Structures are given as C-alpha cells and as structure tokens.
C-alpha cells in the first residue's frame, strides 16, 4: 500500500486520475463473483476478463447495453451501469495482467486445431495471442469451453451477434471442428 502510494506521487499520476477511480474498484469487485477474483476466471464456461483490451471490453459492454448484441445474461446486468462506469470497468480490467488458464490437450487436437483455425489467424494472430488491433480479443489461454460457447453463438442465426466477418468465418467451420478450434486456442497458454 505504501509503495503504491509513493509510486503514484513519484510519477505524478495522482492529479490526473479520474475522480471515479475508487468507485470503479468497488464495482469491479462485484464482477469477480462470476469472472473470478481480479477478473481471472476458474470457471470453464466463464471468460477471464483481466488483461483483455480496454477497447474490446468497452465495445462489447456498450453493445450489450444498447441491445445491438445479444447475451443470455449480460444484456440484463449491464443496463444498470452508467456509460462512465462501463468505461471505467473496461479500463480497470484491461490494466490487470492476462493470466492464461492452463489447459492441456492431445497432440492430435493441436495438429487438427492448427489446420482448422487458418481463417482465425488473420485477425487473432498466429496462436490467437497477437490480435491485430485493440478491438480483437485475446484467445490464447482463454477458457476453451467459453470459446466453444461463443462460437456456438456466432453460428446460431437466432442469436444476434455483431461482427460480420466473425459470423461468416464461425459459420464456415465444420460442426465437429468447433470444439477443436476452441481447445486449440485454450491450450496456447503463453
């Protein structure tokens, strides 16, 4: 605590901090219930959010809030938060360290996974760990189960998703390859 305080003074950040910084940390603690302490999930169907990019986190929350993008539950929760709080949460979680979940898969899944994720590489990078831009989420070491469910959402025409290119590519995958693609990226825990 002392170190933290001194660091703030030494770097001169103190005066430029947004006034709502403290409140954001209080709100962020309520996200931990589902997304893990500090945003690092241990639940296979729930994404880790610590260390995802600020722009990605803010966009997705704002899309849920406006109704532009569907979610089974976040669309309800997020409407209770102000735009400013959402921006603060995005900043807060983006500043935490990305902590990949260690998930082991067979050599066969790795080989097949590499082959079926060609189209993903363009935006998410070679192992899903070097996204092209700040709007593209990190995949390397994200929970495979969660990514499988996300792909299921992109592939279901009854589920309203936003990214045209992603929708197109997700639907190009063979049904049997969805799980493999998700497991492949889950296992890239760098």
């Amino acid at each position, binding site marked *: *605590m*002392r170190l*933290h*305080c*001194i660091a*703030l*003074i030494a770097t001169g950040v*103190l005066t430029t*901090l947004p*006034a*709502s*910084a*403290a*409140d954001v*940390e*209080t*709100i962020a*603690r*309520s996200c*931990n*219930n*589902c*997304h*893990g*302490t*500090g945003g690092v*999930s*241990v*639940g*296979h*169907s*729930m994404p880790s959010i610590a260390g995802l990019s600020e722009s990605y986190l803010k966009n997705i929350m704002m899309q849920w809030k406006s109704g532009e993008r569907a979610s*089974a*539950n976040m669309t*309800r*929760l*997020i*409407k*209770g*938060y102000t735009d400013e709080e959402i921006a603060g949460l995005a900043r807060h979680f983006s500043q*935490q360290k990305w902590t990949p979940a260690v998930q082991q898969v067979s050599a066969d899944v790795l080989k097949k996974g590499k082959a079926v994720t060609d189209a993903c590489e363009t935006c998410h990078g070679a192992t899903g760990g070097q996204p092209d831009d700040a709007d593209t989420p990190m995949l390397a070491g994200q*929970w495979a*189960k*969660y990514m499988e*469910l996300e792909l*299921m*959402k992109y592939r*279901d025409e*009854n*589920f309203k998703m936003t990214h045209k290119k992603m929708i197109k590519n997700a639907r190009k995958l063979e049904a049997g390859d969805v799980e493999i693609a998700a497991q492949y990226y889950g296992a890239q825990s760098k």
Partner: protein
Amino acid sequence: MNPIHRRDFIKLFAAATSSAALSLPTLARAGSAKARVVVIGGGYAGATAAKYVKLLDPSIDVTLIEPNKTYTSCPLSNEVVAGHRKIETLQVGYDGLRKRGVNVVHDLVTGVDRDKKVVATKGGKKLQYDALVMSPGIDFTYQGIEGYNESMINDIPHAWKAGEQTLLLQKQLMAMKDGGVFVIVVPKGPFRCPPGPYERASLVANYFQHHGMKKSKVIIMDANDSHSKKGLFNQAWAKLYGWEKEGLNTNGMIEWVKGAEGGNVTKLDAKSKTVSSDFVDVKADVLNIIPTHKAGRIAAASDLVGTGGNNFEKGWCKVEPMTMASALDPSIYVVGDACVAGEMPLYGNPNAAFDMPKSAHIGMAQAKVAAGAIVAKVNGLPVPDPIYANTCYSIVGDDYGFSVAHLYRVVNGTFKYIPEGSGVSPMTMPDKSPVPPIYRKLEAEYADGWLRNVLADAFA
C-alpha cells in the same frame, strides 16, 4: 487489485499535505494501523468478508470462526439430489483463506459480548474484535407444522443445508418406484434460495424421465401464493414435464399448490408421510419438508435480530445500507442469509417490495461492501459507495437453465432497487417469438462456471 482506493488516497494525501504535522511516514503508519476483524461463519459470505478484508488491507488481523472443516455449497446441490453432479464438486476447505493470511479457527461461537467486543467459543477462546462480521447463515424454527420436529430430519430430510442432508434426499429419490409421489413442502418466505424448491421439483421430474418413472409425480405444497421466476418455471414445466395448470390432480409430472388453494401445510402424520392443509391431505413416498427459517442462532443470541413485526423483521437482522453494519451495533456487520436488506418498507420505502434474495451471490456482494467499509473505517477513510449485484441460475432440465439478476445501489442512505440492471431471462423474444434453445443451453453452462468462480472468489 489495488489495496485501498486511489481516490481515498488522494483525499488522505491532500489532508496530509495541508498539515505540517503529517508526512509520508505518518501516512504509511496510518495505513498499517493494526485492527482485529473477527468473522463468525465460513459460508460464502463469511469467507468472502475474511478474504476481501485481507486483500484490501493485509495489515489487518482477520480471524474466521467456523465449526466445519469442509464447506458444501447449497447452490447447485439440487443437481446432486437428482444425480447430475457429485457432491465433491460443491465442497471446499479453508486452506485457501489460510494461505491469504486469514486465521481460520474450527470452533463454535457460544457468545458475543458486545460491550467488551469479545467473541467466546466452545473451545474456550476469547477473541477481541474492533469489527465483527456476523455471517451465521440461517437456522430452522421447525415450527408451524403440527406433528413435525427436528428429530425427524433423517427420515424427512430438508436438504436445505447442503451435505449429509443432500445425500439423504438423493438416496430416498433413488429408492423410489414408478408411480411414487415426491412432496416438497415450502415454508412462508423469506427463505434462502427463493427459486430453489421449484428447481428441485424440476430436477426430480427430470430424474423420473431419465429413469422411466412416467407415472411418478412431484407435488409442491407451497405456503406462498407466488414464487421466484414463476413464468419461466411454468414455461419450462409445460415444455419438459407436461405442466398444464396450477393445483392438484393435473396431468403433468409437477403439481404446484399455492397457499390460498390448500398448499399451506399445517399438519404432518410422520408415520404415513401425509401432510395436510386446511383443504387437502397429501400422502408422500418421499417427503421433503423445508422448515421455516430464521437468522442463525448466534445472531439472535447476540440480540441483533428483530423481535416483532412482519416475516422480514422478526428473527432477521436489519443493516445500514451504506456499510452492512447492524442497525443495532455499528461494530458488527451482518452479511449473508441472516440479514434482511433491499428496497422495502423496512428501509423506509412504503410501496417497495424488492428485498434482496437470500443467495450466495448477494451474500458475497454484501460481504465485499462490509469489507470495504471496515477497511475504510480502520484507515480513517470515507466509506466507498456500495453496489449490490445478484445473479442466480436455476437448472430445470437437460441443457435448460435460466437466471435472475438483481442490482441495488444506495441513494440518500437507503437501498434502491435498480430495475434497469435487474430481471429474469426472457420468456419470449422482443417480437414475441419463442426464445431459441441456445439461450437456455448457455445459461445451463454458465451455472457451472458461476459455481466454480464463486467458490474460488470466496474460499481461494
């Protein structure tokens, strides 16, 4: 995670620089001021309070007192009853908290001396506190049903505190024969896990389906006239279990009898497992009586519960909305099922009826608010603005789940329910078309992820 809030540091720093007597070393000393926090009860809320006080200010001594060495989660324990989940997946110990520096004592609290601020235990310990977190959960009154008492719970399990009771009910279900009747008796609210009895009915019916017991029935005898997520349950029951309408002697696998129409059980013949209301007698093969609730014993013994008034006042602990401190003692914070909170007449909102549900999730939210308030107080900082969020999943069949969310803030010192951030899973899509199955599947999957994360966020 940053210990202590930045904004508060700004304020503290501003105060410090305005006075020549205060300097950086003084500030550091203020931050490391020792305080003793004792937590009674190691359920979701108590464990969370202990962990988050330590996270926010490691220099505070935290002791958690809990009689049991293993905790068994009540959330998702209906899946164990129906054989979908092993009970071990719901169980956790206290080593995670120990690693974080919490002093965990397996002992039973026998008394709290509020004047001297001392907690006494059965093992002879006397623990001094600056702040006490009271998180004893619920106890049962076993009252209101003639012929029913606590000695019967091995034969007539409640399975409303998870563990041995859960397995007893599971065993009875698995011994049932086709054509048997499983009766769930629901007490007048408030009770923990408001959708729990209806989730249990759903999963028992699901068990019947999977085991070719098409002639078996689940009958819910409910002292209340409505229940949590009623529309969603009825819709799911119609889709999955042949539900037609409310009342007895319907064609579906599940029958729900409301209080006003004979659901309010007042009598038991234990020998024949027959429960009676003023209108009907219902004979069970498996009988599951959920007894009437009250705040955990030690809360009442410490004079922290209401002694009169309605169901929400009598037997429960009223709290200060900003901090979760007891309305009767500013040094004791009551979190979890033992407290009563939310936007309701008790808190000066005459027309509101949004009590916080007694759920693990909101108990943890309350615990985090209490932890933040305690750490602020110990360090002489302003109390942070609280936020209370709840999520509660119900599993009602294969790949079929739904949820309810609640959000509360504090406005002008009183609880405010935020409808924009609350609500149940959709019954229909906005254009009135049916909800695509993917929604129900996703929520069934999320329930498991939620469980693992709440267990870790509280205990690891």
